[in-house]
């Protein structure tokens, strides 16, 4: 109880509340600006967190995370352009509602459902995470190695274009993490007598480059196309009533609950994310709805379901991150980096060694979701103006923040050059079909995998069978193998089944018209 009170004291302090508000507001704005992603927002603001003492910076990032997921729905409803991939399903009914003159109603419902989903998943996190951590406290080096391998194996799920390129990206991340002093012997590795490289390649500038600088280059490219074709973003809809009516709320409440459960569960599965959660929530809402015919034409359940599902992912994704130290996606991988910089090693020991910090995260996430709702209802008219800020203004600001953010980590210009190079390479790599998340996962989990592998082999005097004789370790390695190979084998198995079904259908006699009508 003392820890809870201490944590509440931290969260409700003037400075922390201010930072969570700033983070949430920045997140909503980032989400509302098409082309800026959740990952980019977190990466861009992450260097700032190092200037704050204790947990305040991490809580600000949680605010960005929550706010950005919600912010994406604003553009989805008003201009049929999802601000983030998680809001793509919101376009299906949000935009038709806006066309019918119900933009305010749609925005109000999306805000309420986002807040409900976020709060629901936070409660789920508070209930589930400590129990899972208790189970995981008995783990030692072999199990931690298996966990790291499991975390790395989700690369196949977050690789959007090519599985092989995703794995190569993961290797690049693992390779970057090997530069510097050896974690066991402190011997120099790939440092080439450089003082900078002795401390390893600082991962914050690399993350900022990969997620923010590269996206800014994409924005320059898109701006060129928009200039050529004379495209301009404008909002012509009028927003009247924002707060949902009691009748609307009563109708969508079951959808809120169902979608929040779906979002929390999907969020807790590493390798998934808000986009999957929102589409699954949308499909389920349509299946259970008493008015499925309204879906696609401006259904209030169709707007509520994806938003509740997508925002519930935030709390769900924190479960494996906090209890096992496994980031579920790019955003949580970046946040894991922020935790590490604050000296917090995520995993089961976090709950026994840092109970105050754990409770601070719980309460902070709760507050961030409440603030998201308040800011959403209070500032929606302002956000609709922000989202039409021209790229010509936005991109220079982003690039300046990339440079200053990278500099502020170690106060060295070398980091700014590292960021620029990483960002340019990231731009080219995205063009070639690479995803950036596997690289980050490799950088973050590489040292954990290597250190625990070598510790485990020291424990067993170099005997590799230690990984097969410990049940939990073996279980995680099997799950990792399934996670790794399922995206490869799964589609081939489905194709084989479809081909088999088709050949069986050809061989079977054609049913008569009578049997069809029956």
């Amino acid at each position, binding site marked *: 109880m003392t820890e809870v009170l201490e944590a509440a004291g931290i969260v409700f302090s003037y400075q922390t509340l201010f930072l969570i508000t700033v983070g949430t507001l920045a997140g909503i704005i980032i989400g509302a600006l098409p082309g800026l992603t959740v990952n980019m927002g977190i990466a861009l603001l992450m260097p*700032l967190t190092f*200037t*704050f003492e204790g947990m305040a910076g991490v809580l600000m990032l949680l605010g960005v995370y929550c706010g950005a997921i919600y912010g994406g729905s604003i553009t989805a409803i008003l201009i049929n352009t999802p601000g983030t991939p998680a809001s793509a399903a919101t376009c299906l009914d949000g935009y038709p509602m806006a066309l019918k003159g119900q933009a305010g109603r749609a925005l109000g419902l999306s805000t309420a459902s986002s807040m409900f989903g976020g709060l629901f998943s936070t409660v789920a996190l508070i209930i589930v995470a400590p129990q899972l951590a208790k189970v995981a406290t008995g783990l030692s080096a072999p199990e931690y190695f298996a966990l790291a391998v499991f975390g790395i194996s989700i690369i196949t799920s977050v690789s959007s274009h090519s599985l*092989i*390129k995703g*794995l*190569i990206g993961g*290797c*690049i991340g*693992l*390779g970057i993490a*090997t530069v510097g002093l*050896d974690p*066991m*012997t402190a*011997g120099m*590795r*790939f440092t080439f007598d450089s003082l900078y490289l002795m401390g390893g390649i600082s991962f914050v500038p690399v993350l900022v480059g990969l997620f923010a*600088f590269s996206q*800014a*280059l*994409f924005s*320059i*490219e898109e*701006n*060129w*196309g928009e*200039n050529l074709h004379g495209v301009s973003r404008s909002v012509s809809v009028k927003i009247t009533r924002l707060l949902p009516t009691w009748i609307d709320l009563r109708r969508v409440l079951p959808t809120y609950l169902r979608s929040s459960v779906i979002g929390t569960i999907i969020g807790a599965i590493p390798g998934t994310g808000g986009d999957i959660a929102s589409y699954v929530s949308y499909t389920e809402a349509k299946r259970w709805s008493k008015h499925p015919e309204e879906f696609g034409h401006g259904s209030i359940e169709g707007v509520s379901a994806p938003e509740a599902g997508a925002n519930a992912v935030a709390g769900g994704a924190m479960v494996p991150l906090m209890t096992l130290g496994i980031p579920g996606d790019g955003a949580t991988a970046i946040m894991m980096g922020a935790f590490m910089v604050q000296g917090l090693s995520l995993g089961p020991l976090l709950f026994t060694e840092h109970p105050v910090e754990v409770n601070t995260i719980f309460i902070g996430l709760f507050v961030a979701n409440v603030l998201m709702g308040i800011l959403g209802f209070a500032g929606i008219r302002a956000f609709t103006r922000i989202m039409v800020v*021209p*790229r*010509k*203004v936005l*991109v*220079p*600001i982003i*690039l*300046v*923040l*990339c*440079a*200053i953010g990278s*500099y*502020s980590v170690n106060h060295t*210009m070398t980091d*700014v*050059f590292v960021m*620029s190079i990483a*960002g*340019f390479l990231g*731009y080219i790599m995205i*063009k*070639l*079909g690479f995803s950036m998340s596997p690289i980050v996962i490799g950088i973050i989990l590489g040292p954990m995998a*290597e250190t625990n*592998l*070598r510790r485990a*082999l*020291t424990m067993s*005097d*170099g005997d590799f069978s230690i990984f097969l004789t410990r049940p939990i370790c073996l279980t995680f390695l099997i799950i990792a193998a399934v996670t790794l190979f399922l995206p490869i084998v799964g589609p081939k198995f489905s194709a084989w089944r479809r081909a088999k079904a088709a050949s069986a259908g050809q061989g079977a006699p054609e049913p008569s018209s009578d049997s069809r009508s029956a």
Partner: protein
Amino acid sequence: MRKYNFVVAALSILMGCAIFWFSRNLTPFDEMGIPGEAFWPQAIAWLFIFLGGLQAIQSLIASSSGGEASVDLHSPGVRVAYIGALLAFAYAVLMTYFGFSVATLVFIPLLMLLMGERKPLMIAVTALAVVAVVWFFFVQVFNTTLPPSIFFE
């Protein structure tokens, strides 16, 4: 895309070989048979080589079945992005010598001009506002330092 996929495959294999070369003086295993400094990097190197090989095979299969997507690295829009990247790199160099304020006041107008902004007032206001806001938040609120000019260090 086919050509670039082969380049990716070749670079992956090259990366693996480079790791082997640079880790040649590190110890893979100690006398107890426990992995040393070279073990993990060399395991990654093998993965690079294996995945590079797989990428090459996949590209061969995909090109024979005609299932290759195109990749845009030379269109005018992409070239503008390259110039933007060059400007950003020059911004970092400028910041090293002249500090944050001067470099930003040069960089923002140039980038805005590159992106098609032609209103001088808009360019001037944006540049000055960004410098002022960043200085206020970073220096006054967050109590951190901005890159100084080497001439004033």
